[in-house]
């Protein structure tokens, strides 16, 4: 069955450093992969989408890579700020628009 793995433990990082979050998937080949941010008690907020033929995508301080051979996506936040503290969800899209979310990684940026 399809499986998505994200670091379920919290990631603590010092302000100003680069945070790197990992998403691994098995047993399917998504054509797209999305990353969302979710704050406690709120709905997820779309951040970035990367296609299978794109190796890397950037948006301001965010960068996403997508390695279909390794079945892995990496999500980077450069110059991290305390306001970046949240849970980040990986969401591969397989089949016809079927979005499957990972459990998320909780990022804590320490001032």
């Amino acid at each position, binding site marked *: 069955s399809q499986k998505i793995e994200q670091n379920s433990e919290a990631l603590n990082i010092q302000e100003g450093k680069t945070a790197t979050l990992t998403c691994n998937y098995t047993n399917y080949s998504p054509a797209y992969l999305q990353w969302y941010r979710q704050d406690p*008690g709120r709905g*997820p*907020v779309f951040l970035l989408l990367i296609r299978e033929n794109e190796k890397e995508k950037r948006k301001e301080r965010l960068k996403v890579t997508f390695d279909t051979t390794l079945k892995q996506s990496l999500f980077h936040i450069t110059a991290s700020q305390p306001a970046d503290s949240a849970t980040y969800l990986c969401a591969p899209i397989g089949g*016809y*628009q079927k979005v499957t979310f990972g*459990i998320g990684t909780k990022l804590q940026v320490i001032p």
Partner: protein
Amino acid sequence: DAGVTQSPTHLIKTRGQQVTLRCSPKSGHDTVSWYQQALGQGPQFIFQYYEEEERQRGNFPDRFSGHQFPNYSSELNVNALLLGDSALYLCASSLVGTSGLYEQYFGPGTRLTVT
């Protein structure tokens, strides 16, 4: 421009009861998806509606049903509630046929507690 709205924000029901949750999509969006998010888990896809039809469904029993209205708003119905149905129910809207198809806008969710 109003984003996705959901009602109610919180709801407490008893086992065996039925519940209806409501969602209004972002202005201009025509597709609505529903997700269930248990505490500490990622959202789980329930189903998606487009043109008033259920287009795709996740691994949820028939107790979960939905509807989409001509104005694109949607309802999620859950019958014969179980304790395990306690969760945050999220509605997300998107627009078919554009590059933003997969960019979903989520509402704040409805927190359902079954006792």
